[in-house]
């Protein structure tokens, strides 16, 4: 039986990377005693799929993973045992069975809705920079990885941005909707970094970013 969990990668665990989250979930499922099926082969692994990776630093309010279980255990009992086995910062929101005919998860993801929280910027300044960004036909950005630099066009991925709102002194919060295209997407930090060329002076590393939800087809 395949089950899908809607869980939260909360504020306290925002600094975990995707692999760390997977490791934490795997340990929690074992503590919870879930009958997770193991893969075949030389080094069997539990059949768990953690979807739509979040980068280090980004929290997620409604994230998804699937687990393949042997037998047909009671969903309510599974949910209770997992909820009490998760480390602080994680929470289980929903748990439901998934049929075999479902399309692959990543193909159904259309976009992510993020909230971006920045300090030391004027709402007006960010509004202007975002307007310029949205008017541009392409916004090339260099993603620097340890062994390569990859240039991506951020523009088509940014589906929309909300009105920047003041959230206390010197603090601005805005929504950002970013597309997923067959598993490919871009990071909100990159978008903020790219706003430098449109006149915004903000350190993207200081932005606090949460994925509020994943939007499906």
């Amino acid at each position: 039986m395949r089950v899908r969990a809607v869980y939260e990668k909360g504020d306290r665990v925002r600094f975990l990377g995707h692999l760390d989250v997977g490791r934490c979930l795997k340990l929690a499922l074992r503590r919870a005693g879930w009958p997770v099926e193991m893969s075949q082969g030389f080094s069997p692994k539990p059949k768990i799929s953690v979807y739509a990776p979040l980068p280090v630093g980004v929290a997620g309010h409604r994230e998804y993973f699937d687990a393949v279980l042997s037998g047909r255990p009671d969903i309510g009992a599974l949910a209770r045992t997992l909820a009490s086995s998760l480390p602080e910062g994680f929470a289980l929101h929903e748990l439901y069975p998934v049929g075999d005919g479902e399309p692959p998860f990543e193909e159904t993801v259309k976009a992510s809705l993020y909230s971006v929280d920045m300090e030391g910027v004027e709402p007006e300044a960010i509004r202007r920079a975002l307007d310029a960004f949205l008017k541009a036909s392409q916004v090339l950005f260099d993603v620097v990885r340890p062994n390569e630099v990859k240039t991506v066009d951020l523009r088509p991925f940014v589906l929309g941005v909300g009105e920047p709102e003041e959230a206390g002194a010197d603090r601005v919060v805005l929504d950002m909707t970013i597309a997923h295209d067959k598993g490919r997407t871009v990071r909100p930090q990159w978008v903020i970094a790219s706003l430098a060329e449109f006149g915004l002076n903000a350190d993207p590393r200081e932005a606090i970013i949460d994925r509020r939800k994943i939007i499906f087809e």
Partner: protein
Amino acid sequence: MGPSWDDLKRQLGKVEKPARYVGGELGAVRKDLASVDVAFALAFPDVYEVGVSHLGSLIIYSILNSLDFVACERVYMPWTDMEQLLKDKGWPLFSIESRVPLASFDIVGFSLQYELTYTNILAMLDLGGIPLRAEDRGDSHPLVIAGGPCAMAPEPLADFVDAFALGDGEELVVDIVRVYRDWKKEGASRRELLKRLAGVEGVYVPSLYEVVRDETGTRAVPKDLDGFRAPPVVRRRVLKSLEDAPYPDKPFIPLIPPIHDRAMVEIFRGCGQGCRFCQAGMLYRPVREREPETVDKLAREVLKHSGYDEVSLVSLSSADYGFIKEAVSRLLRKDPCGARVSLPSLRVDSFSVGLAEMLGSSATSGLTLAPEAGSQRMRDAINKRVTEEEVLEAAESAFSAGYSHIKLYFMIGLPGETDEDVLDIARLASRIREIGRKMGKRPTVVVSVSGFVPKPHTPFQWEPAVPPDELKRRQRLLRNALRGPGLEFRYHDAELSALEAVFARGDRRLGAALEAAFRKGCRFDAWPDQVRFEAWAEAFRETGIDPAGYAYRERPRDEVFPWDHLSSGVRKAFLWREREKSREALTTWDCREGRCTGCGICGDFGVAVRLAGGRKGPSFEAGR
């Protein structure tokens, strides 16, 4: 104060692996620091992933937090980017659990596992807002203590640490926090606290000793303080039995993978093999085994609590455990999820076919064996009592159990080593490869070689280390002999071994060089990509220290060492006898075989070898 969570999280995007600094581990203990008598910061002078894997720290953390008058929190050495961030923001080094500055704790206790972490200790004190030198600390500052193997020869740190805790920490740390609590309630002076601590068995307070240097060596002599004198010799604390000792069966589980990402159960402490280079083998005597039922119970408990599917049965030489096969097979069998079992530090002699097969069925990685030396003569000299046939048989068992990747640990630069001895390492590795090939495998034999560093409290404490240039020549010799498919050569940085050799047998004068190196920015000296040898060379020069005199000098028999006032329980006369036997390539047996070797600890310390299952240990022979 330390940073608030909101302030911290806005900055952590600037550092590598920020999860190192945020805690939140399942099973971490967070008490109200204001409501306890003693707030204790357990400080590990290396990065988070290394520190959280350290079993000794887990033990101390769980014992301290089990006391209702103590709250123990953790702090690790921040990576260089985080150190810079702390400085940029004007934040002090803070504890993981409550995010409060190091300086606000009553006691800061460092774990001393390795000499090349010493500059990190100074950095942590400094970042934590604590004066570096013990003499500059007053009543408002924490008591700075340190324990672990390096505390048995701690003079290079004597200027910076108020008190050293020697030996097994389980009972000692409780004694220390009790003395501290009573002293704090009375509101007596800091000097009074130090005197009281010096009265606890196993505590060495360096400021109560004067260092006397003459033609016989360097000795620490208790000062006369208005009639008070600390003990002339401080004895290491020794737990009589591991069976009754507390064990962290519900350890905290890090959210990012530690370097040893699995459950751990200590199956015995101490080692009876008596390898002459090995400090741990001398420092943790006598052997005390846990009962197999207890091992099994603890392993299941940790597995259940953690969610791990692998447990490591740890000790200095796990295959020597009296019930190793039983313990492994029980864990493999009973667990319906099929826990994997790993054994660190496998000896090649007691490694049996059965054990290889058992582990092979669950092993994911290769197998590591430690013959330590390539020639029989050299293995006899270091008392690694294993024959070439035994090594080859062990390799054959491993290949037949399904392993194809075998890693071999060796040392070079051992006392009396010739080029032939070095080349024998390559010959042994080639023979193992041949065995693998004959069995139809495509074997990989990895030869990992480190430079020998003479350590205090061992039979080789009188021996010189080999200087880096000569060590490098021997590395090249070996590398040239190890070319070919299926053979890999790895070696440690020779300069690092040299620095370690200086501090391992250092005296109090080295404190000045250590501080100078810290001021020049030296950190993470054990990390080959971080250590700055030029800065160290300057530090030695400026403070008038001749490092070669510490590292490469052979000591005469009657020299008084800077650690002679700290007793491990193994007598110096025994160590010298072992050293003399080494010169003749004569071996000494393991006292678990039934005959006392006369190292002295059982008689002098009133302890005994404890073997599981009611097996009889050696009867102590007085007067040997």
